[in-house]
């Protein structure tokens, strides 16, 4: 990357200048061996992309540390409070892409009071002056304001990709700024964000001449968009490959877009329903041909308000699909069967449990290449009917042997089915089972679910992520501690009998990085048992457990490199009581932007 050489910081520039000067005047001095080595190293390191490898490289010696810092272009910060913007920028000066993650995952389920933190502002402010060549920003669970987006749009002339996942704090006016000012924009992906409706027509703000847009994802936006402007935008975006529409786009409008963009590879189909008033005499457009024309389509989603009558329109693309997301589509078994029977290449499948066990059996029969399955509940309450059960899980385990990742919501489950999955799907990396009724045992034997989850950690040797549920004793945790040697993320709710449960895990799982626990009887003694490990973790979350303030204070005293936050319920008058312990390693002093209900010990 020759252009980098021109902006090198101080000492190297002088050396180069001297070298060049030497060549010109005939007084050439060959560079010192150290310098050669460093130059070679930098050139080699350019090829190193994995951040774990880079972290290892930076530990070799000072010169390698420097070289690595100069050549790292992708900055990944898993917890925005673990390091300050200033420190990150001082070390890594040539960054092109930044990944920042903020709130812990349980915040998605309203367990964290709002306004907890994770503000993008200090980051974008610092980067605006230090990373002029920034091209990509990926944010997850951060609070992003319209002003932040405005600053971003103004500060980075080469800006190409903005991906916001589970973020909030901004609205359509912020998007308008991005659309109008980022002339090189290729990717604008808004995924599961909360976007305020400022009644700004942001779609019209893209440049009038052609755009270089490759991906435009806005299916999470809960307000109407200017469809005519979108149609024109699609027409002048020849590179567009990924388009995911929100539910305010009707199927008739979808048709008009699809015939303009048959090159799409990823399509989010919007509402997949007709707008309210359809003239009775009018012919409906030929949706089937529109889909048939999209020969490159491999990923299909949307169906936000599906009228199942329209489902046959997608038949022509099913055979090529590798990813199908029906998780917003209220369809029944028969409707699913009519589609899934064509989807032989499917690798990723998200669906609602409205399709029942029989629907999952159909998936198992056809989708032999399935790698990832997510089954969401259409009625997410503890006491609802529960159309899927161990029957569906068993069928999937038998039919989809290559399964790597599963998220399964259900009302009843058996150990036998979970054990079967552990044996049939040995490639499992992610196993997340949510039995929605708290403390529910195996519904056939009445036993706790210990053996099922035990089998998972025992037999699935590649497992790195686990979420457990149902009636669970300390035995389940002893299994996890004994066999879950690669587990990095563990999610626990309403489980365990005593401190031993947590102890087993903290003492047994050396790779544990993210531990989130709610409503489980683990207390201070258990917390203490993890002292040897907390610096290796990204965070620990414990809410509604048996912790005391003194116990948390002890941890804070013992580990100065940890930030220990105790978070009160906003309604709580008792200033010493708290709901949540959230602690994480950090290179900085505790943050100063914490709200009143957060106490940092």
């Amino acid at each position, binding site marked *: 990357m020759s252009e980098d050489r021109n902006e090198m910081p101080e000492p190297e520039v002088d050396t180069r200048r001297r070298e060049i000067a030497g060549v010109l005047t005939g007084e050439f001095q060959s560079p010192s061996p150290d310098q050669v080595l460093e130059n070679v190293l930098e050139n080699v390191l350019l090829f190193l992309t994995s951040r774990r490898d880079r972290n290892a490289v930076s530990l070799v010696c000072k010169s390698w540390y420097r070289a690595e810092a100069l050549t790292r272009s992708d900055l990944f910060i898993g917890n925005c409070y673990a390091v300050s913007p200033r420190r990150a920028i001082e070390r890594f000066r040539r960054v092109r892409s930044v990944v920042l993650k903020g709130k812990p995952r*349980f915040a998605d389920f309203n367990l964290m009071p709002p306004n907890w933190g994770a503000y993008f502002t200090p980051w974008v402010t610092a980067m605006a002056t230090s990373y002029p060549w920034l091209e990509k920003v990926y944010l997850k669970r951060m609070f992003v304001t319209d002003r932040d987006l405005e600053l971003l749009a103004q500060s980075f002339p080469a800006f190409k990709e903005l991906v916001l996942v589970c973020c909030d704090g901004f609205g359509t006016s912020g998007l308008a700024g991005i659309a109008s000012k980022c002339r090189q924009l290729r990717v604008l992906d808004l995924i599961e964000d909360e976007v305020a409706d400022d009644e700004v027509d942001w779609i019209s703000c893209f440049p009038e001449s052609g755009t270089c847009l490759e991906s435009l994802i806005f299916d999470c936006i809960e307000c109407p968009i200017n469809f005519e402007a979108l149609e024109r935008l699609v027409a002048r975006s020849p590179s567009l490959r990924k388009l995911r529409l929100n539910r305010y786009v009707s199927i008739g409008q979808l048709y008009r877009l699809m015939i303009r963009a048959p090159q799409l590879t990823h399509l989010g189909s919007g509402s997949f329903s007709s707008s309210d008033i359809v003239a009775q005499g009018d012919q409906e457009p030929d949706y089937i041909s529109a889909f048939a024309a999209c020969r490159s389509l491999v990923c299909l989603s949307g169906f936000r308000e599906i009228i*199942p009558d329209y489902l046959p329109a997608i038949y022509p693309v099913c055979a090529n699909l590798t990813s199908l997301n029906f998780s917003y589509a209220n369809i029944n078994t028969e409707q699913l069967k009519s589609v899934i029977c064509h989807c032989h290449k499917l690798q990723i499948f998200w669906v609602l449990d409205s399709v029942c066990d029989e629907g999952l059996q159909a998936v198992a029969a056809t989708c032999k290449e399935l790698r990832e399955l997510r089954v969401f509940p259409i009625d997410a*309450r503890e006491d609802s009917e529960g159309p899927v059960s161990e029957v569906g899980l068993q069928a999937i385990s038998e039919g989809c042997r290559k399964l790597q990742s599963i998220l399964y919501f259900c009302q009843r489950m058996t150990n036998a089915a979970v054990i079967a999955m552990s044996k049939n799907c040995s490639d499992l990396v992610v196993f997340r089972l949510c039995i929605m009724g708290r403390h529910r045992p195996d519904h056939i034997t009445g036993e706790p679910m210990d053996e099922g989850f035990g089998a998972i950690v025992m037999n699935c040797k590649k497992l790195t992520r686990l979420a457990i549920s149902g009636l669970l004793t300390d035995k389940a945790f002893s299994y996890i501690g004994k066999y879950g040697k690669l587990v990095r993320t563990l999610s626990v709710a309403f489980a365990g009998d005593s401190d031993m449960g947590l102890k087993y895990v903290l003492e047994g799982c050396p790779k544990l990085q993210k531990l989130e626990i709610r409503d489980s009887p683990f207390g201070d003694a258990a917390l203490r048992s993890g002292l040897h490990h907390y610096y290796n973790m990204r965070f620990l979350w414990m809410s*509604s457990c*048996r912790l005391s303030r003194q116990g948390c204070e002890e941890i804070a005293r013992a580990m100065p490199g940890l930030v220990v936050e105790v978070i009160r319920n906003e309604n709580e008058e008792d200033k010493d009581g708290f709901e949540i312990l959230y602690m994480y390693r950090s290179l900085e002093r505790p943050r100063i932007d914490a709200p009143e209900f957060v106490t940092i010990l």
Partner: protein
Amino acid sequence: MSPQLAKPSPESSSAGLHFNDTELTLGLPGATKSGTKRGFSDTVDLNLRGPCNTDHASNPSENDVSGDSKPPPAKTQIVGWPPVKASRKNVAKISKYVKVAVDGAPYLRKVDLEMYGSYQQLLGSLEDMFSCFPIRNYLNERKLMDPVKGSDYMPTYEDRDGDWMLVGDVPWKMFVESCKRLRLMKSTEAIGLAPRASQKCTSTSGSKSL
């Protein structure tokens, strides 16, 4: 001796249980020590916490291990459980949109059957939507059941098997499940589909139980 709602103190955990047994407390007969406290928080604690959630600062002796306590009454919803994001809960709310055609009207409409709890509600809404077309509401027993009466319309629907059925014969929930589209048919065409005044067809609420 003043009755009291006793808050078990930490010291009582090991030594003093027998002492505490003799203490007068305000509580239901048979309520255990921990039971009184839990009972209090169950009724007062409108934050709807789980049974394991206790006052964290004290009471290590509290014995409500979540494993052996009964789950709370079925209808209380716990914050953040099950762990499904709000956007999924809202959009995945059950909706069933079907097209509605009325003989003679130039436009179709669309209704969400899940918005209604009964036939009465649905037909009332259809009447509003197509206000110029009086719809026969033969379910209302007070109305005259005269099948051949001018410009009245019969509500019919196409079911999963593709058959055209008269609205109102089956329980509401079953109807919602099997209905694919609605058609308000001119009564004059509906001769032969004599409506049965079925007592079963009360407006059973098809709404989700809460």
